[in-house]
C-alpha cells in the first residue's frame, strides 16, 4: 500500500509537469494549427532564467529565492513565447512545413546556446527546507516537491478552465479551436487570440521548467526536449485542443509510467506510454476528448 501510494503520487507529480507543458501545446495546436517544437525551448530558457534570478538574490531566504525563480521563469517563458509567435510564427501561418522547420531550428539553437552559456552539467536549484522534506500519506513518505507540483498544476488547470469558460478571450479561443475562419467572420481579430494563447502556453511551459527543477532538484539543458516528447503524447492522447483532455491524459501517462518503470524492466514505462498512444490512435483517433482533429 505504501509503495502504491508513493508511486501514485509521484506519478501524479510527473503527470502534473506533463500537463503544464501539454496544456499550452494543445491550445496552440487547437487554435492555430501550429505544431510548436520550440515549446521545450520555452521550458528550458525559463528554467535557466529562473535559476539565474534565484542566484541574483542569493542573500535572501531560500523561500524568497525560490519564489523569485518561479516568477522570473513564468515571465520569461511568456515573453519568449510571445516573441516567437510575433517574429517567427506569424509570417508562417498556413505554411506548416515552414513552422515545423523554424520551431525545430529554434529548439535546437536554443538548447545549444543554453549549453554554451551554462554548460551541460545540471544546476542545483536552491529550495526552501520544506521542499526537501517529506509528508507521510497512508504510510508512504511522499517528497513534498511532488505535492507542490501537483498543487501548482491543479491551480493552473483551474485558472485555464476559468479563462476558457468565463472570459471573452476564452470564448474566442474555444470557438477558434472549432472554426477559426468563422471567428474572423464574426469580426474578431483572431490574431490577438493567437498571441495570447502563445503567451499563456509559454508561461505554463516556463512554470513547468522551474517546477521540473524543483521536482528533480536540478535543471539541465536537455530536460525540456525529453519532457516535450511525452507532452506531445499527452496532447494527442488527450485530444488536440482540449485542456481537460490533456489533464486526464497527463495523469494516465504519468502514473502508468511510474508504475511500469517500477514494477517492470527498465524502460517498460516509457514504452508502455508509446503503446498507449498507438492504442488510442487506433481506437479513438480524436483522443480522450473526442476532438475530431
Amino acid at each position, binding site marked *: 500500500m505504501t509503495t502504491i501510494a508513493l508511486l501514485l503520487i509521484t506519478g501524479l507529480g510527473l503527470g502534473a509537469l506533463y500537463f503544464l507543458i501539454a496544456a499550452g501545446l494543445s491550445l496552440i495546436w487547437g487554435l492555430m494549427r501550429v505544431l510548436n517544437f520550440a515549446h521545450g525551448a520555452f521550458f528550458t530558457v525559463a528554467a535557466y532564467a529562473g535559476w539565474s534570478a534565484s542566484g541574483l538574490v542569493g542573500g535572501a531566504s531560500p523561500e524568497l529565492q525560490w519564489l523569485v525563480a518561479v516568477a522570473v521563469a513564468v515571465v520569461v517563458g511568456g515573453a519568449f513565447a510571445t516573441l516567437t509567435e510575433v517574429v517567427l510564427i506569424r509570417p508562417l501561418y498556413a505554411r506548416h512545413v515552414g513552422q515545423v522547420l523554424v520551431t525545430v531550428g529554434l529548439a535546437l539553437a536554443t538548447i545549444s546556446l543554453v549549453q554554451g552559456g551554462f554548460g551541460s552539467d545540471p544546476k542545483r536549484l536552491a529550495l526552501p527546507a520544506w521542499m526537501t522534506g517529506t509528508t507521510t500519506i497512508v504510510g508512504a513518505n511522499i517528497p513534498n516537491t511532488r505535492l507542490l507540483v501537483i498543487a501548482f498544476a491543479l491551480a493552473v488547470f483551474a485558472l485555464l478552465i476559468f479563462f476558457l469558460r468565463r472570459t471573452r478571450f476564452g*470564448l474566442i479561443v*474555444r470557438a477558434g479551436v*472549432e472554426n477559426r475562419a*468563422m471567428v474572423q*467572420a464574426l*469580426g474578431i481579430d483572431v490574431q490577438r487570440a493567437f498571441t495570447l494563447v502563445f503567451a499563456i502556453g509559454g508561461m505554463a511551459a516556463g512554470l513547468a521548467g522551474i517546477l521540473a527543477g524543483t521536482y528533480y532538484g536540478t535543471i539541465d539543458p536537455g530536460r525540456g526536449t525529453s519532457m516535450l516528447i511525452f507532452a506531445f503524447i499527452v496532447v494527442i492522447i488527450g485530444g488536440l485542443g482540449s485542456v481537460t483532455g490533456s489533464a486526464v491524459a497527463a495523469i494516465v501517462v504519468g502514473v502508468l509510467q511510474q508504475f511500469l518503470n517500477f514494477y517492470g524492466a527498465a524502460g517498460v514505462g516509457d514504452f508502455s506510454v508509446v503503446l498507449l498512444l498507438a492504442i488510442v490512435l487506433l481506437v479513438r483517433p480524436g483522443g480522450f476528448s473526442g476532438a475530431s482533429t
Partner: protein
Amino acid sequence: MSAPATLLAVRDLNVYLAESHILQGVSFDVRAGGITGLLGRNGVGKTTTLRGILGLVPRTGSVVLEGAETTKLAVHEIVRRGVAYVPEDRDVFAGLTVEENLRLAERAGAPLRYDLVYELFPELEQRAAQKAGTLSGGQQQMVALARALLNGDNRILLVDEPTKGLAPLVVRHVVEALRRAAEVATILLVEQNLSVAHSLVRDVIVLDQGRVSFIGDVDQLMGDAALARRHLGLAAAGSH
C-alpha cells in the same frame, strides 16, 4: 422617387482556388435596403462571391462598401464595418451553447438587437444553455441568422442558402425571419430554392461559370420562361 443608393459595389472580382479560376471579373451593385438575390446553378461561384466580398478567400478586384474600399482590409475589419455573414453550412460553434454563440457575435460599441433576435427566434431564448451542436438543422440556422442580426450597426447581411436542407415548415419560418431582417438591414441572398428567392428578393444577379450573366428585376427574370431557362437552366417562370 429616386433609386436607393448603392450600398455595396463589386468590381472585377477574381478568385483563383488551387488551379481553378472560380470568379472571372464579377461586377455588380447591391442597392441599400431590401433583399438582392445572387442566383445561379450549382458551382457557378455564388458562395465564393460572398466569401470574396468578406475576404475569406484571396481575391483581386474591388469591393466598395458605402463608398469605402474594403479589399485591403482583414476579414474582421470588413465585418466591423457592418458586413455580417451567414454561411451555407451555418458554421455554428457546436461545442458552445446557444447563448455563447450569440455572445461571441456581440461587437463592442454596437447596439445589440436581442429583442429582435428573440422575437424572431423565441426558441433560442429557451435553448440558451443548450450546446449548438445538439440543435436541429433549422435551429442551427436560427443561431446563424441570429448572430448576423444581433449587431444593430450591421449594414449588409451575406446570407448563403439559408433554407438548404430544411423542412418546409422551418423554411417558412426562415423566410419570414429574412423578410423581417430586411427591414433593418440590406441582404445579399444566395438561394437555390427559386420560389423562396422569388418571394423575397427585389433585384437579381445571376452568375454563370464565374461570370455575371444577368442583372435585373426578379419579376423580369422569373416572369420570362425563356430568360429563366437561359440563365437558371430550368423552367422557373411563374414559380412562387
